[in-house]
């Protein structure tokens, strides 16, 4: 059974008397453990699709099955629970919370999942160790380089042990050596069994995935790999 299955997913919004289509007739299946890249020109609908996959946007037509659960039929609260349980996010601009230390940024997803304090401490310590950032735990994001920030962001995305990571231009703000480090990290996580769906404009970054889906004007126009 595919981890993700989209059937005839469509998204549009009203612009005056007409409708503007963002996604058209999207059929997509992503197996557990897969590594998929969404590519396409600006306005193709990549970010919207990522948002629907991440269950942050429930306002679409069609069917979205996640691990056998009908996400399209769920009430917002249940959908949010599903998101919390299984999905981690990595963003282009890292989006660490400036006022929290590295340690607290890592702790945040766990606290939102009501993980007891002691268990949280253990998991954060483990993540700090695993990603080699123990020495940075008391620093604020502004005291880290871009690559270090994204490293923390990835660590934050996986700390709650999600089934799937959604990455929106994960290397977009990094110089090439840092970008390579992050992509190798994502590949390693994928090798450990985490499903990854990323959006990128960069062919080299796309090269880390097993499959690339091309979007244009809201339609899937090709699927490579």
């Amino acid at each position, binding site marked *: 059974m595919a981890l993700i299955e989209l059937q005839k997913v469509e998204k549009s919004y009203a612009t005056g008397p007409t409708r503007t289509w963002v996604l058209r007739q999207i059929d997509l299946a992503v197996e557990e453990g897969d590594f998929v890249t969404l590519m396409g020109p600006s306005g193709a609908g990549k970010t919207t699709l990522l948002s629907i996959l991440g269950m942050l946007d429930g306002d679409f037509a069609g069917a979205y099955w996640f691990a056998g659960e009908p996400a399209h039929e769920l009430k917002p609260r249940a959908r949010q629970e599903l998101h919390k349980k299984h999905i981690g996010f990595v963003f282009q601009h890292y989006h660490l919370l400036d006022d929290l230390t590295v340690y607290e940024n890592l702790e945040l997803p766990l606290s*939102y999942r009501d993980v007891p304090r002691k268990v949280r401490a253990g998991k954060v310590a483990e993540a700090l160790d695993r990603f080699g950032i123990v020495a940075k735990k008391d620093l604020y994001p502004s005291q880290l380089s871009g690559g270090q920030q994204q490293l923390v962001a990835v660590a*934050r995305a996986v700390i709650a042990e999600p089934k799937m990571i959604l990455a929106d231009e994960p290397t977009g703000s990094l110089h090439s050596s840092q970008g390579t480090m992050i992509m190798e990290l994502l590949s390693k996580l994928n090798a450990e069994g985490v499903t990854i769906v990323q959006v990128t404009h960069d062919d080299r970054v796309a090269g880390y995935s097993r499959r690339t889906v091309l979007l244009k004007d809201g339609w899937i126009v090709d699927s490579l790999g």
Partner: protein
Amino acid sequence: MNAVIQDLRHAARTLARTPGFAVVAALTLGLGIAAVTTVFALANGIVLAPLPFPDAGRLVAVGHTAPGLALEGTGMSAGTYLHYRDHARSIASIATYHESVVNLGGDGNEEAERVPVATVTHDFFTVLGARAAIGRLPLGADADGTGEPVIVLSHDLWLRRYGGDPALVGATIAPNRVPRRVIGVLEPGFAFPRRDVGIFFPSDPDPARARASDLYNEGIARLAPGFDAPAAERDLDRLIATLPEAFPDLTPRVLADTGLRASVRPLKELIVGEAGAALWLLLAAMAFLLLIATANVASLFLVRGEHRQREIAVRTALGAKSGHLVRAFAAEGLVVAVAGGTVGLLVAAGAVRAIAAWEISNLPRLDEVAVDGRAATVALGLSAAIAVLLALLPLVRLRRPQLVATLGRGGSPSAGRDRQRARRLLVMAQVALALTLLVGSSLLARSLWRLRQADLGFQPAGVLTAELALPRSSYGTYEATRQFWDALVDRVSALPGVEGAGMVSGLPLVPQSAFHDLALDVEDRPQETRRAMSVYHATPGYFAAIRLPIVEGQAIRSGLGVERPVLLSAAAARRLFPGRSAVGKRIRRSVGDGTDQPWATVAGIVANVPREHVGGDPAEIVYLPTLAEPVDPGLRPSYGSLVVRTRLPPASLVPALRQAVRDLDPHVPLAAVRTMDEVVARSASRTSFVMVLLGVAAALALALGTVGLYGVISYAVKRRTRELGIRVALGARQADIRNVVLGESAGLAAGGIAAGIVTTLASTRFLRGLLYEVSPGDPLVFTGMVALVLAVSLLAGWVPARRAVRVDPVTALRQE
């Protein structure tokens, strides 16, 4: 719990990283909270808090009305006291009292002092539930006139004059040179009828000699269970009908003529008086100020919210439920609230102390006012409610589909527009409220100015006054008192710099007790006898000293050739002799028991003076000159105010005045030494007090409104930098750019002013009672304040406009 503490810790840290926002938000909120808390503490201590007596809700003031004498409020007589005490079902206990002043000391090195005293029935303290700090309170046997005369001292007097010496209980002191044994000292804080009453004389009426018609005492009572004030009033009205049976001096005819009715009011109402209305008005004004401050803080939170959309999106993407977000943002609000509330409480505590020490505030129960637990709860509660609600503003209209877009682009433009619209509305509301406060305070200021211009009837400048009382022990006869006053006036008139001196027993603008309202008969109008009027003694020189002109007839002087001459105020003349001249007509004091007083002849009419406050009703006064031949032998000028007109600064005359009195009689002290200007200012003190507080609120409101307007325009310019750059690139001149910005500022001000005119017209009518010859819709005040608000608004837009004209189009267009 851990999560909440963690949220609070994070919130404190987040705020510490933006100290500008945190400090401005807390101070602005604190200012608004302080304004409301200060006035709430006053209203709480004065109006809301029960009187400091056990079961104070059952305490009432008992008196009468006598519509037949045109007396709205008169007191109790010995007869009514005994009758109600013995027969009223509605009353558990009842007492009467009257206030006067005694002279204490003056022997040897001991400083003579005038001490306010109260003569009370023995059950006075029982009614109030008072206790003695040392010694005991009077019993019936102490007050029936059969035993040794005793007194009770106030705690204040005992501490101040006698150093808190416990041995004073049992000792004898001699108020007015009559020895009396001290049986007890009251507990500290007892402040009825007033805080400064130092000695209480227990004295019960003799039932065998009691009269019902002399309604000169004040009455208090404790209601029986199951009765309220109106029910007690009905019960006493029923008993009034049976008074003539018990007290022959009150004949059924007199009862019918006077139309005597009982008046029972909660005691608190008597003490608080009209202060309540002024305080509620001020509380409403301060609530306006708090709203303005809140709008400013809301504006700050809205701007901050724009920068925090990314944070909200990240937290949501990380799995935060709305509850988590609410908690995190509410925690920030709570931190601001605690800081703002603390600032508010500290400022309020200082302001309350300042007001309590500020004599002109002239408010009752000020010694009971404090920023207590209740006021603190209001301050912190309001602060918390406001700050937490405002802190949650960034979460309003949060749409999840925008989240990823927000994370991608760094902000949702439509949400930004919404917030800017909200801020514009807030600024308009601020301008509206500021205009209301400005107009309110300006109306009062104009009113006070009018009061200062008002014709008082006399000329207060350069006049010094002082009160003196002559004890019966030394001045038991009319002749003794007259000689004292004549001698004193002669001595004072001879002092260097003095232009004239005189004595009057009732100064203009100083409310006198009902004791002075005496019923009069008019000789040629037997059908309409018994008019109540103030009857004052005056030495002939009083009128010249205070420059109160004789408007008709003659001034009093020796050899006038008029038998028993009196002067009437113009208002009294009009009441007693409507439509015709009063000069030469005869009146006499009516005593109601058939014994006739001699007729007196009206020699002249004196200009009116206001009764209680400047601009108020003129007093209806009969002036009895203190001549060698008494006009009314039954009335003795035992106390009065010395009135001295001087070319020197009035205060410089005080030592010489004191010496002159001491030379005549060292046992007679001077009291209430003040200039007539001070008397006039004090009579307008309620208006002054409200005006000053409203003025402070209005100034703060204008400042906060200006800052709010400046913030919004400034931010709008920043947001429009690109647009302004395009305009410049397209050929706009500096003036065009400046006009765009100033136009926006003027537009906001105009919207606020339009709304403000509506709220102002709706609110200023509540000021009507405090206004004098100024209408609540005074066009001059409205136009002036609208112009001021408009000018300040343009000023607030001027700085951003200057910044806007300096926009570099190349730099501006590079911005995305």
